[in-house]
């Protein structure tokens, strides 16, 4: 068919049939589908809603509910012909052995300390970016910090191993400066684990702090200065209270993430720094019969982490309210 013929055919056709979309909307099966879907606003909404609702219920909530169910059964997987019983014995196991609750409390206290360290480390950085850098350069300097955070957990953990090892860079520099004769054993301690976890989570603290500080108008500080407040007072009475929201969301995020690390404590920690994630993971390496205990421990950890972050946020809200009086 020549070009003219095509053009003539096109112009002869009704306007609605010329384009792909026109042809589609005139196509029989599609018309049937469209009438079916749009018969009533109610049906239209139901068709739109049914898949997402089923998805979040079965895929997002389902795994947690099944974990809860497994944690309450006496044996899993269920052997054929054996009746299943509900039990809380797996939860009780947690309190009976020091080997279980010690890593649990260690995880929570480590996560708290690491979160606090991350906050202390990133607050000045966020402050500098938001208050002392021109908006043009701000994005560039922030991007520079984002690059390493695209790199995966394992690779960055490995990088910390090279930094802190007995023949690592820190020990080399210390030796070269003549400060030490033999290497300091940084690795496989809570220190190396802390450096690693702070390294992995710093960005999740930096971004909420940065956006909170950026929103804060400079005029507030100027007003405080006009009223005679010194630098420290301005920070304590103006900047800090008004960025509590960023602090609270950053801390919550970092706390939740650092309780969930598995590979980093395995690679950077030692026997004396076993965290609860390793305890839980242990139940899933050996043959499946220990799953209910592992599931129960995971539920304990999840509930504890949620309770702690929720009460932390509550305290922060109260602090904020107290300051706006």
């Amino acid at each position, binding site marked *: 068919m020549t070009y003219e013929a095509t053009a003539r055919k096109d112009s002869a056709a009704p306007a609605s049939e010329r384009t792909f*979309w026109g042809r589609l*909307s005139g196509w029989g099966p599609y018309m049937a589908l*469209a009438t079916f*879907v*749009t018969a009533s606003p109610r049906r239209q909404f139901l068709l*739109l809603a049914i*898949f*997402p*609702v089923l*998805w*979040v219920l079965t*895929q*997002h*909530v389902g*795994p*947690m509910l*099944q*974990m809860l169910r*497994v944690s309450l059964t006496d044996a899993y997987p269920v052997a054929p012909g054996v009746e299943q019983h509900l039990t809380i014995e797996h939860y009780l196991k947690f309190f009976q052995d020091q080997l279980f609750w010690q890593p649990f409390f260690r995880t929570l206290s480590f996560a708290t300390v690491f979160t606090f360290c991350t906050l202390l480390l*990133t607050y*000045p*950085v966020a402050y*500098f970016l938001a208050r*002392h850098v021109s908006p043009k350069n701000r*994005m560039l*300097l922030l991007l*520079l*910090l984002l*690059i*390493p*955070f*695209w*790199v*995966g*957990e*394992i*690779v*960055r953990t*490995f*990088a910390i*191993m*090279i*930094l802190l*090892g007995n*023949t690592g860079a820190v*020990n*080399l520099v210390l030796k070269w400066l003549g400060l030490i004769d033999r290497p300091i054993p940084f690795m496989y301690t809570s220190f190396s684990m802390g450096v690693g976890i702070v*390294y992995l989570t710093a960005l999740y603290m930096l971004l909420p702090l940065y956006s909170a500080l950026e929103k804060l108008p400079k005029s507030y500080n100027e007003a405080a200065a006009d009223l005679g407040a010194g*630098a420290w007072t301005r920070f304590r009475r103006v900047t800090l209270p008004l960025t509590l929201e960023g602090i609270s969301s950053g801390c919550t995020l970092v706390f*939740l993430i650092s309780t*969930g690390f*598995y*590979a980093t404590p*395995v*690679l950077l920690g030692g026997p004396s720094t076993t965290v609860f*994630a390793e305890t*839980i993971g242990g139940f*899933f390496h050996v043959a499946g019969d220990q799953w209910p205990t592992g599931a129960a421990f*995971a539920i304990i*950890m999840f509930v504890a982490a949620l309770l702690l972050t929720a009460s932390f946020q509550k305290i922060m809200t109260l602090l904020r309210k107290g300051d706006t009086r």
Partner: protein
Amino acid sequence: MTRHNRILLSCVYWAFVAYVFIPLILMVMMGFKDSKFIGFPIKSWTLDWYTGVMGDAETLTAFGYSVAIAVLSTVVSILVGTWIAVLLEGRSFWGRAAIFGMTVLPALIPGIISAIAFRIYARLLGIEPGMGAIIWSHAVHNVPFVVLVVMARLSTLPKSQIEAARDLGADPLIAFLRITFPYLVPAIMGASIFCLLLSFDDFVRSFFLGGYEPTLPVLIFAKLKSGMSPEINAIATVALILTALIGVWAERFTRRMNKD
């Protein structure tokens, strides 16, 4: 006073830059060390570790496996996430808050707990540990991020455009495909890259849901546990350069999108 503060704070910033970059730079350097032992000082340099890795079937397989998992799980996350975002944005209905809460749930569960919850649920669904299970867990885990990014973009779509399309005779499906979807493309691209990187870098889910085939992070982990050699540095460096490049490109891409 302010000047002093500024100098002090810029020192803190550059110290922080050093803190986040130096470990990675050292790791990359170590991949060129001409010795089997990881550690400083590096006396002579070689490219052998890289050529070794390029010819190593195990590493290449793991790499391909990771890429395939990342791509397939991203496709699922994007389809589901966009659908959920379209349902949730700009509509108010009974139970919306509950659905939103359930949508973001997977992003809030600490890594190890999410991994074993998926492991238990995979058995219930009858999914064997392996590629399918990993793809499924990554897809579910990444949906919340897609929903949040797409919802943010959707909230800026002028309602008048949809109304105009409807007035001109488009049914809701065509209006979605011709107006809403093209408007969402930049957000979907950004979310895709984010999902690809999350999946490619993920360790804990791949570890607990994997079969005998390791993904790249799982392979590096296994090698690290059995003993360190500069070979791991070469593998990790390749993974690092790839993820950093994609990340930087995505960052530029989303910035250009926001300017439009």
